[in-house]
């Protein structure tokens, strides 16, 4: 090995010193530390340090997302061809190897999903680098995860220019104005998603953008459906809903690019819990929260409070546990609610925070007439309230300390004789 590698390492080391204190230093360091973990040694405090750094932590999340991304690339094609067959009244049998994991399906993924990833990373990292250079701080790793999340939570037919505009908005307004990674109040990926939703509502909330080409073909003889499960439920089109529970669980349904496979998301979530990267408290309590809300709605339907003609009947009568299988709920719980920066930071707070996310997601999902999905709104809302939750959790600790203080008998300062006297009494 490696005289060559040594010289490469050496050369980079020399370059690092060359760039030190120069404008481009953050940009160079970002690339350098990607290739080599730095030669920094400890200067104050503990002389040895644990093995984890932020890059490693973020990398874990990306690893947990990769299966989802791969699946979504196949699913993009699968949904496309399935919609065409459905439009032509051709019945098809599902088979994992023959109709799902096919090159044709994957090709659609390459031409539709991959560009989303490239644009998301390209634009987002560019903004990050520019800000790092202007403000003279290191490029922090936050966007590595955000950049992967964004393409997975948008509809497949999102135009790339829209995505680019949204990413710029999300990174600048959602993160950089607060001071960069670790300082933001709202989850940047969800800020981007919310921007897309509110800036281009007619495009984003239709029932066509979920399947490749569904929008383009509208009104032509080749029109295909792009409706999601939630969309159908919101329209009370229960009859059209021909997806089995296993389809929904494994993710062979239309939806935002990466949100469909609850199975893979579950695996990713278990991986993140096992590697101690994401909070199991948030995930578990969010699942509980969504089940509770779903149960309440089911109960309302069972008690006959609303009729089948009601606008909400479709979603309210949807069995409570199925909410976790459709839409972005599972994805949001595992990958977005657990964002440590924007979530609750105390362990007790995480329980409350997670529960309310699950609870609100299902509530908004059912009651939102414009767009039958509530996860991103619920998480953004709870992002705003997370500091408040933490405030009360921390306050409890403070009050405990104050109470202890009030009950304590503070000794008189100084005075030796007093000390002696007190001692005499206690003996």
């Amino acid at each position: 090995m490696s005289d060559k590698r040594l010289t490469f390492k050496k050369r980079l080391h020399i370059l690092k010193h060359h760039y030190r204190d120069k404008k481009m230093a953050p940009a160079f360091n970002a690339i350098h530390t990607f290739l080599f973990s730095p030669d920094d040694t400890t200067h104050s405090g503990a002389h040895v340090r644990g093995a984890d750094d932020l890059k490693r932590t973020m990398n874990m999340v990306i690893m947990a997302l990769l299966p989802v991304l791969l699946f979504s690339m196949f699913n993009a094609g699968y949904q496309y061809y399935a919609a065409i067959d459905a439009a032509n009244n051709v019945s098809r049998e599902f088979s994992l190897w023959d109709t799902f994991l096919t090159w044709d399906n994957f090709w659609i993924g390459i031409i539709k999903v991959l560009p989303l990833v490239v644009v998301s990373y390209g634009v987002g990292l560019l903004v990050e680098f520019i800000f790092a250079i202007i403000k003279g701080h290191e490029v922090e790793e936050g966007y590595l995860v955000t950049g992967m999340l964004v393409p997975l939570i948008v509809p497949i037919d999102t135009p790339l220019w829209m995505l680019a505009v949204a990413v710029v908005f999300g990174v600048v307004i959602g993160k950089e104005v607060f001071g960069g990674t670790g300082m933001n109040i709202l989850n940047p990926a969800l800020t981007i998603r919310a921007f897309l939703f509110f800036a281009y509502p007619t495009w984003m909330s239709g029932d066509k953008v979920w399947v490749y080409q569904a929008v383009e073909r509208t009104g032509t003889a080749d029109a295909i459906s792009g409706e999601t499960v939630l969309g159908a439920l919101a329209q009370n089109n229960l009859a059209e809903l021909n997806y089995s529970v296993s389809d929904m669980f494994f993710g062979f349904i239309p939806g935002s690019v990466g949100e469909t496979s609850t199975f893979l998301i579950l695996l990713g979530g278990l991986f993140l819990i096992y590697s101690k990267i994401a909070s199991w408290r948030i995930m578990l309590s969010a699942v509980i929260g969504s089940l509770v809300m779903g149960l309440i709605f089911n109960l309302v339907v069972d008690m006959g409070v609303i009729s089948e003609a009601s606008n909400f009947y479709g979603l309210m009568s949807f069995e409570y546990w199925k909410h976790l299988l459709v839409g972005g709920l599972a994805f949001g719980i595992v990958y977005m609610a657990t964002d440590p920066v924007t979530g609750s930071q105390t362990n007790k707070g995480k329980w409350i925070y997670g529960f309310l996310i699950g609870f609100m997601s299902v509530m908004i999902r059912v009651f939102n007439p414009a767009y039958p999905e509530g996860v991103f709104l619920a998480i953004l809302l709870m992002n705003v309230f997370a500091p408040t939750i933490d405030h009360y959790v921390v306050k409890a600790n403070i009050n405990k300390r104050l109470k202890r203080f009030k009950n304590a008998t503070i000794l008189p300062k100084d005075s030796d004789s007093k000390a002696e006297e007190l001692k005499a009494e206690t003996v």
Partner: protein
Amino acid sequence: MSKDIRIRKGLNINLVGAAEQTTAKAVLSNVYAINLEDFHGITPKMLVKQGAEVKAGEPLFFNKSDEAMLFVSPVSGELVEIKRGARRKILSLKILADKTQSIVEHGGFDTEKATSAEVKAHLLKTGCWPFIKQRPYDIIANPDTNPKSIFISGYTTAPLAADCDYVLQGKEKELQAAITALGKLTPGKVHVSVGANSSSPLAGLNGIELHKVSGPHPAGLVGTQINKLDPINKGEVVWTVSPQDLVVIGELLLTGKFNAERKIALAGSSVKAPKYYTTKIGAEIATFLYASGVNNDNFRVINGDVLTGAKSRPDGHLGFYNNTVTAIPEGDDYEMFGWALPVFNKVSTTRALTFSWLNPKKKYDLNTNTNGEHRAFVVTGQYEEVFPLDIFPMQLLKACMIKDLDEMEQLGLYEVAPEDFALTEFICISKQPHQKIIREGLDLLYKEIG
């Protein structure tokens, strides 16, 4: 009634190079040094001039804010150097030792009969007072305060630190004398803790409240024990003394002589034969480091343990409070894709392709690399896993960083010392300097309120 302490949260960092329990006598050091950084917050006023001859136990300087508090020379010899830094701040004093040592005789002291005031005056006069530290603020105890209790931890959990049970062997008499004297200084109790299964000489002393401690580091830190037994409220003061300093105090009370000799552990993976040495406070580290041999040239000498010690050098000197000297490899090298590859040779509390959880007993050869760059606080919930105190660690750190005095107070800054944050600093993914943040927070609070 004694209360036992069981700690669950924490982390034992097992390192290669623990000191073998045999003791050698270190070569006599030619030059001894007192490093003023050891006495945090003390402004020294010199009593002797450069070039003067001093005896062992003779005062070198006093505390500017308390003239009675004297700091003495560990050996007899000539004060050859007063090293000054910016604004003539005294950094260190160097004493060239005499061939034959002469010691100041303070005479016998009847500890049993002495009053609290007499004990205080005696300890201040003889230079033993600086061994007593106080919380809040983690500084040398203010003799004018009235501590609600005194804590002594005889349980060692810090990585590679000198084993208290071993270094205290045979020192029962000295320890008892010191405990008796300290007992007069507080209306409260003298809490002494030992390991659950230890045979510490501390366990048999009279006039103490004995506690058995078990659990991973930081169970052995006095801050953890205070928090579990008798947490500090605003306005209260607790004093702490480390056991090996008790021996010096005890010997002075018994014999009237300030004996700076102590048994220290020389440890770390860069030391060829790590073991214990008897030497004196201020001795040059090289006098025992090279006797054990070193593995390579690129190592760091630490005055203290790897978590809380001060960076030193082979020609540095044993610190006033230290009974451990550690030498570990410097980590000033790059690692290709170090952030992405699986890690088998480093310690971690996560399982992010780090595998130290597989074998908790494995010993590691850690170096001084930071394993990543400084970042803003991002990840939450990880400090709490290794922080057993009833305090929110990250919130307290943030309060210190933004200098919010009210919050620092409310969140419990009075109860902690920088060393309590060594473990959270160790595992910190954002590589934040926790101990420095806490130290600066304490200094600010002391300046504004204390």
